[in-house]
């Protein structure tokens, strides 16, 4: 389409960014890509060490961010199956529309990451032999994982926050738009999308003019195409 003066752009919301990122990693070509409230580990796009979270104490003595993840494993095969850097080379000039206090990509996503990754029946054993550290328990054997698309959703824990809540995400990300910005607020308010994970779709369209205007501008699309 590009030689004819058109552009191809992609917008994905929440876990839709897993699908979008996967398509881009498999050589899909778009001019620009807007990531809305991305429920994808920030480390996928950016390998920067400082994004890795430090242990924190939650309720009932549960400690968050204290589990070893395959992100920094010494085994290259294990690291290949981990989140870190998985989308670091995607094209499409990704624009991260993030919301720092999004209750889905902070509280819920981080709790899920801590409590339910690896999923029951899957595991990560940092001291196991190379090539067999990530595994699934089959009826009789512990099967080593070899496919990142099986390892990531079931066995890998993230060592970073979700990109959709992490302003510092760089790497493949070319630009950040803070959905907490005052311009995105409801009348009489100044807090943008607050904690609302899907405000783009759930608020009245009359209150979303600034958001969609910004989306078009970021995608370099005219508000009034001829």
């Amino acid at each position, binding site marked *: 389409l590009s030689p004819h*003066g*058109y*552009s191809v752009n992609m917008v994905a919301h929440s876990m839709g960014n897993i699908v979008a990122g996967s398509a881009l990693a498999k050589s899909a070509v778009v*001019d620009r890509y807007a990531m809305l409230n991305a429920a994808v580990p920030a480390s996928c796009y950016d390998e920067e060490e400082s994004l890795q979270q430090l242990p*924190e*104490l*939650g*309720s*009932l003595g*549960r400690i*968050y961010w204290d589990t070893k993840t395959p992100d920094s494993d010494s085994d290259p095969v294990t690291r290949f199956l981990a989140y870190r850097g998985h989308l670091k080379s995607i094209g499409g000039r990704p624009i991260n529309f993030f919301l*720092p*206090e999004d*209750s*889905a990509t*902070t*509280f*819920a996503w*981080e*709790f*899920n990451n801590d*409590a*339910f990754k690896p*999923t*029951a*029946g899957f595991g990560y054993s940092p001291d196991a032999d190379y090539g067999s550290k990530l595994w699934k328990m089959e*009826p*009789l054997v512990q099967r080593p994982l070899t496919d990142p698309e099986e390892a990531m959703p079931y066995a890998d824990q993230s060592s970073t*926050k979700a990109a959709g*809540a992490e302003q510092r995400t760089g790497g493949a990300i070319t630009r950040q738009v803070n959905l907490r910005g*005052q*311009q995105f*607020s409801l*009348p*009489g*308010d*100044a*807090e943008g999308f*607050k*904690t*609302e994970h899907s405000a783009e779709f759930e608020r009245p369209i009359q209150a979303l*003019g*600034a958001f969609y*205007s*910004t989306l*078009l*501008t970021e995608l*370099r*699309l*005219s*508000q*009034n195409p001829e």
Partner: protein
Amino acid sequence: MKNRRLALWLLLLTIVVCTVGLSIHSGHNPSAGAPSGSAIDSNSGLPNSGYSSAQAPPRASLGNPVSQSLTKTDVENMAKIRAAYSSPIVFFGKVIDRDGHPVANAKIHYSVADKYFRSDSKYEAMSDDSGLFSIRDVAGAGIWVNATKEGYEGTDHSGASFGYGVPTANSPPSQQSPAIFVLRKKGPGESLIKISSRQFAVPKSGDPVGVNLSKGKATRGSDAQIQVESWVNDGVRDERGRFDWRCRVIVPDGGLVERDKNNFEAPENGFGPSEEFSISKLQKDWSDRVEREYFLKLKDGTYARVKFQMMAGGHYNFFVLESYVNPSGSRNLEYDPAKEIKAH
């Protein structure tokens, strides 16, 4: 031969074990993290088990997929979620203005993350004469709090979230050290002409595009109050897609000065006729855009404030303006929606 026989025995054993295993666990999917088809508890957002998490799960029975859908793991997982999402919340806050004075009777909006992957519960409270408030008798993984008041405007510090059950965001405040929320007291609102973010295409060859901010329209005439020129050489890009470009913002017979976003009164002097941006593809901090906020002194002696963005290159080379013009001649550029003058 011996190996083949051993393999056959192993295969047979595997089939027998799997069959027994399936018979024992039939009716649920052992690998599923959450049950499907369960009713949702309207309070917790969890699948409704119909019994407390301390009780044993019901025995699965063949042929009834609804009643047998919860495994022991499911029940344990639900207990973990309940524990994280039912942490008692006791919160202390104080609302002040930018000078540090307490703001009484500010409206406190708070939403509690009390449902797993579902919308928060929303509540309201009020600050007292000292700007203080407290929140009790709610429970959740965390809480979002923000303050508003008529005649005041939110700032970067008028809302925040705090982790209780899940330690994301800020740590809970104490009565001795309450969380501080800052509002800006607005000045008297003026009758301003507002243009919400509007795009204007601009040639890459330096041909100027003028905009009349009172009309909100591009103009080629002498009524242009701001003018933008751009030179964009995006036909010659490096291997990273970068290119050289520059642009100039001009206020004909007037001037512009950069604005602090918290300042709503234009200065009396310090205005320059134009600002130019020159971006080389060799620059480490190369970007195909610039953003600035300005106060403008227009040629008729009136004042305005604008947010300017230049988006250089590609099929659509354009700039974006958001502007507020005070036609009265006052330097006060505080916006009051009730007094807005429509662009004409």
